């Protein structure tokens, strides 16, 4: 007997259906008997019973699925048979999972001999906890259902109660996203702390030599500066040089000059550009833009021009960000009151002068916020740089040379055969944390600016 969450969920859903029918029937019956009018329609009584039956049991099911494996393992470790296990590390984990797989019928026989004596305790513990779980769940479902069932009376306000329960369910759903983010941040933090026990934060933040492949920590192996520089060069400099002017000009054209018909076509097209998967941009950068740029560089006689270049990645990333910048700028320019524009035109300014001297300065705070958001997106972007920017950690301002970025290195550190507690692997988490903190700060600042700007015109 194992604990099959999906089947159990179906079971309580079935019970809930029965509860719904019963609740409905009972409310009708009671109303008929007492010759009274129901406060809520019979369905609501049905829903009330069904929700009380389903929700607590389902919640318990979720919690139990999460904690019971831990409880089972604890029980097994406490048994006599576990005395001979190796103390730590992968071997111990492998033996335990081998025994678990056999006990739960996922595999026919043990692959590691040392796991054999553990199979029986595992099977016992699994049974035990499965029964406890199922029993508790059914008890909860029945208790909830009975509680709701006994409360049905003609004047019971099932409709308002259901409303409250539904609100609670919606609240829980929204909490899922928040809690998940929180969990991710915590795990990032936790792994980073493990990394910083091996390598000092100062080295990561200020070191200038990035060479994590060598394994054992040595002088300045995890110096992050080359990665940070590469990230800034591609995401904050080259991409923005492309995206800001083009995005701004697009926005100005669309808001000030384009006929409504043109606008109706161009805006959705730009949104499609924003929806292209980044991997497509990535191979466009790697296969089309990068070789062309290299030829161009060779023609100019630029030394060490590489097929993987900061310029190729940066330009394509800039193109990717254009819709983002233009739609933010579009919003900000549109938010500048028409009166401002009229005031300038009435003084005899041309539309162009009006845009340059009144609209853009007035829209600037909003546009700045949009640009910061765009930067934070660009530095978190991965596919393009992995495919087009290269992996060699160079500290160079030559845009034709190959550089690497934080995201590209994270990918490199985590792909291939990895041990999960080497400094090299943990470095990925530390880099992720740095990236997370930077983009978070950028987002906070940007949103503040945008908000303040919006308030100025409301």
């Amino acid at each position, binding site marked *: 007997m194992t604990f099959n969450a999906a089947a159990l969920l179906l079971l309580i859903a079935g019970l809930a259906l029965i509860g719904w029918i019963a609740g409905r029937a009972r409310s009708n019956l009671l109303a008929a008997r007492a010759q009274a009018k129901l406060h809520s329609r019979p369905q609501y009584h049905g829903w009330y019973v069904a929700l009380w039956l389903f929700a607590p049991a389902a919640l318990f099911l979720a919690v139990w699925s999460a904690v019971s494996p831990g409880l089972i393992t604890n029980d097994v470790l406490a048994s006599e048979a576990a005395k001979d296990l190796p103390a730590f590390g992968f071997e111990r984990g492998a033996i335990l999972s081998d025994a678990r797989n056999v006990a739960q019928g996922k595999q026919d026989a043990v692959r590691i001999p040392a796991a054999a004596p553990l199979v029986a305790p595992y099977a016992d513990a699994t049974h035990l906890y499965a029964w406890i779980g199922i029993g508790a769940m059914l008890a909860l479902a029945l208790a909830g259902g009975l509680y709701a069932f006994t409360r049905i009376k003609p004047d019971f306000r099932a409709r308002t109660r259901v409303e409250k329960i539904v609100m609670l369910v919606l609240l829980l759903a929204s909490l899922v996203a928040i809690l998940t983010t929180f969990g991710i941040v915590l795990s990032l933090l936790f792994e980073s702390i493990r990394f910083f026990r091996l390598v000092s934060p100062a080295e990561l933040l200020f070191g200038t030599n990035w060479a994590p492949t060598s394994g054992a920590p040595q002088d300045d192996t995890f110096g992050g500066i080359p990665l940070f520089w590469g990230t800034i060069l591609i995401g904050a400099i080259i991409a923005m040089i492309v995206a800001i002017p083009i995005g701004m000009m697009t926005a100005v054209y669309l808001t000030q000059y384009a006929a*409504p018909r043109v606008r109706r076509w161009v805006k959705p097209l730009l949104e499609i550009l924003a929806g292209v998967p980044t991997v497509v941009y990535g191979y466009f950068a790697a296969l089309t833009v990068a070789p062309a740029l290299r030829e161009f560089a060779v023609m100019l006689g630029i030394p060490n021009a590489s097929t993987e270049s900061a310029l190729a990645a940066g330009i394509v990333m800039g193109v990717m960000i254009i819709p983002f910048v233009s739609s933010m700028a579009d919003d900000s320019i549109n938010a500048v*009151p028409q*009166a*401002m*524009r*009229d*005031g*300038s*035109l*009435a*003084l*005899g*300014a*041309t539309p162009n*002068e009006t845009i340059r*001297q*009144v609209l853009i*300065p*007035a829209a600037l705070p909003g546009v700045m916020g949009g640009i910061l958001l765009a930067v934070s997106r660009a530095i978190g972007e991965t596919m393009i740089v992995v495919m087009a920017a290269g992996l060699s950690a160079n500290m160079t301002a030559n845009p034709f040379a190959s550089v690497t970025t934080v995201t590209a290195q994270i990918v490199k550190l985590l792909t291939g055969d990895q041990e999960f507690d080497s400094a090299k692997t943990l470095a990925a988490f530390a880099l992720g944390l740095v990236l997370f903190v930077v983009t978070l700060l950028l987002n906070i600042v940007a949103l503040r600016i945008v908000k303040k700007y919006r308030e*100025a015109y409301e």
Partner: protein
Amino acid sequence: MTQDDLTISDPKMTAHNVNVFYGEKQAINDVSIDVGTELVTAFIGPSGCGKSTFLRSLNRMNDTVAGAKVTGHIALDGEDIYAPSMDVVQLRARVGMVFQKPNPFPKSIYDNVAYGPRIHGLAPNKSDLDGIVEKALMRAGLWDEVKDRLGESGTALSGGQQQRLCIARAIAVDPEVILMDEPCSALDPIATAKIEELIHELRGKFAIVIVTHNMQQAARVSQRTAFFHLGTLVEYGKTTDIFTNPKQERTKDYITGRYG
């Protein structure tokens, strides 16, 4: 000839048989009117009758409204302002406009006033520009209040000060005509009185056209009054005549407050 003579021998602007359409809809129907050089002309009439529309056709601000179309003949100093050869930018420098809601640019007080002179290249150097800004602010009666804080943002002024700043901004380019669309409707009585005083002082230097919903204001500041109703010009004449002895029944009803 006195200033209050009805015949305008030397009109600044003339409009003949003007129609204005927004798409299919006609907002102004066959309006003819002369605007005197040294006079303040008031446009009155119930809401939606087309006062703003007609006013905006005098400096071609209707061009900025998609679908707006003007027919008929409007001239400034005898020159057709809707002729293809007319430079709209130049026209708007000669026919300035003040809006209902104060709309200073989010720039400093100084830059607000200097905006027009700068784009039209009226000041060859900084000290000339300073002079123009000071003179415009003086004429708008705002100089004493802001002379120590010209660098502060124009949007930080009070509503009445902002409106006077907008007037200063309009007169800084030295226009010949100033159009004002309900310039006091967003202001309190004291600020309103200041603007009215200002209109008195500006009269004679510029031709002024003012749209207002306030009968007393029209009576106080203008020498000519035009009463619009449903897109047509019902009656136009000396302000004193319109208010004491209207010829049309509709005008009488309106100024005595029987509808509006």
